[in-house]
């Protein structure tokens, strides 16, 4: 944009023409302007008696001038609510300030209808400063009111949508909680001659976890247990978790041999997810425990598929990993090798199963180092000899202590031969 300072040659002629046109249009008198203005005018005495009113306002009211001037007071034009507001707020403020502007009121129309208006008033004073009369303008606020109502309606609709969204979210969370519970046993069954304890740490209440564990009877003498971790998170992972849990339970009833149960699971997962382009697999430890009621010892047979080694905490205060090296992730290959291990829990010994949320928890000031196997082994040794319940409690406190460093789900399961009561 540039200005040269030179007048546009076209401007001069145009200006003259439009001035003439304006003059012709503006030849109406001040009286005409007053009467037909696009707003209502009225002048009242200080007691409210209407002294003068314009045609526009009379038209809105549907009243004859003779019925109004000298006969009605300004509040008479208002609805009951308007009258009240006029008495309590409008008039006192006007007296105090000498003017008042933009007050929303409603006037009564002849047919009984109401009309929303915006009212402004100013007090005219005499030479000595004494109040003489009140001049009032009345603006038609019907469109504005409609607009405000539209806004209110919009706001109400938004509010309802928000409430609905919150209700949906609550329902979804409830559904998630129910599903999550179906992935884990509500309580562990009592196992004669064995004390059990478990803990599940959820990294995020909104997300279905992928860790799982279970303990259940397989025949008169033996119980089976498993614990594992499904790859990924969310609904897809939960579907795998569910499939895994119930496959292992069914497989164990058919044949409680640990390698056999894991092989069945491997076959099921591999067949289900092969060719989907979305490999799904899990790590799992599956085992059986057989308590000897005479000696109080518990024989453990287990197999691992890609899972970190379980820990054995001995009554004498030592702890060791029970290595299962080379056991493959479950569901990756059509046939997989699983590695077995056996041990015997004497009274006071505890077997501890965990998922890698525990060992992969980030520790240290900058949360860059991992908690790790060695720290876990040392921790286990410090708590060796304690009951499964106490061990799980200590680990739960440890997990809580990780705070934000623990960003994965973590499952813990402890199975112990109770120490003899003294």
């Amino acid at each position, binding site marked *: 944009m540039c200005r040269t300072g030179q007048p546009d040659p076209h401007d001069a002629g145009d200006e003259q023409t439009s001035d003439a046109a304006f003059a012709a249009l503006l030849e109406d008198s001040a009286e005409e302007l007053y009467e037909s203005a696009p707003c209502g005018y009225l002048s009242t005495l200080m007691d409210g008696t209407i002294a003068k009113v314009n045609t526009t306002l009379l038209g809105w009211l549907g009243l004859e001038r003779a019925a109004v001037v000298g006969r009605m007071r300004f509040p008479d034009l208002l609805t009951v609510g308007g009258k009240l507001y006029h008495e309590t707020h409008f008039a006192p403020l006007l007296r105090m300030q000498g003017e008042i502007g933009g007050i929303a009121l409603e006037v009564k129309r002849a047919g009984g209808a109401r009309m929303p208006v915006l009212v402004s008033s100013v007090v005219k004073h005499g030479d000595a400063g004494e109040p003489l009369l009140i001049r009032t303008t009345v603006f038609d606020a019907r469109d504005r009111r409609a607009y405000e109502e539209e806004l209110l309606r919009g706001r109400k609709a938004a509010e309802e949508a928000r409430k609905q969204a919150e209700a949906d979210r609550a329902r979804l969370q409830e559904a998630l909680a129910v599903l999550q519970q179906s992935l884990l046993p509500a309580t562990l069954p009592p196992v004669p001659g064995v004390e059990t304890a478990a803990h599940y740490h959820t990294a995020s209440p909104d997300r279905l976890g992928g860790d799982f564990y279970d303990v259940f009877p397989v025949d008169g003498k033996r119980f089976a247990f498993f614990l594992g971790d499904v*790859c*990924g998170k969310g609904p897809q992972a939960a579907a795998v978790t569910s499939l895994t849990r119930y496959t292992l339970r069914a497989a164990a009833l058919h044949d409680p041999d640990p390698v056999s149960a894991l092989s069945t699971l491997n076959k099921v997962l591999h067949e289900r997810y*092969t060719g989907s*382009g979305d*490999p799904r*697999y899990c*790590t799992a430890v599956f085992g059986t425990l057989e308590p000897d009621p005479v000696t109080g010892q518990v024989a453990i047979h287990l197999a691992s*598929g*890609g*899972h*970190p080694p379980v820990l054995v905490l001995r009554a004498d205060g030592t702890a060791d990993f029970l290595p299962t*090296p*080379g*056991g*493959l*992730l479950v569901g*990756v*290959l059509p046939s*997989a*090798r699983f*590695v077995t291990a056996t041990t015997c829990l004497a009274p006071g010994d505890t077997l501890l199963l965990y998922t*890698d949320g525990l060992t992969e928890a980030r520790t240290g000031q900058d949360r860059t180092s991992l908690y790790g196997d060695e720290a876990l082994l040392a921790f286990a040794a410090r708590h060796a000899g304690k009951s499964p319940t106490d061990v799980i409690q200590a680990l739960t406190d440890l997990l809580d202590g990780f705070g934000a460093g623990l960003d994965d789900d973590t499952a813990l399961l402890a199975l112990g031969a109770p120490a003899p009561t003294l």
Partner: protein
Amino acid sequence: MTARDAATGPVLEIAGELDHVHANTLREVLTTLTLRPGQRLVLDLAAMEFCDSSGITALIAAYRHAQAAHADFALAAVPAPTRRILRIVGLDQTFRLHPDSDTATRPRPTTT
């Protein structure tokens, strides 16, 4: 993620983090890769800084992709933390691991 061709077949060099996002990229790249029977798909992890469970899933997807094409599969220069995870989950027995991409792309002596 860069791809190059060696005498043995395609080599994918994976740099940075093989997390959820980059694992998806790897899986997309795999689908565009031409892999002929008898070739070897090599993933060079020398510049990989981090690999989580989604990364492991992507490695498995790559392995399956190679198997489906009747091709070989090998990993080169696997960083120690990832090698540890592969050992825990038993995949070190399944994947062929090489110290570097040179040995990974060395043609195998032909067998009869």
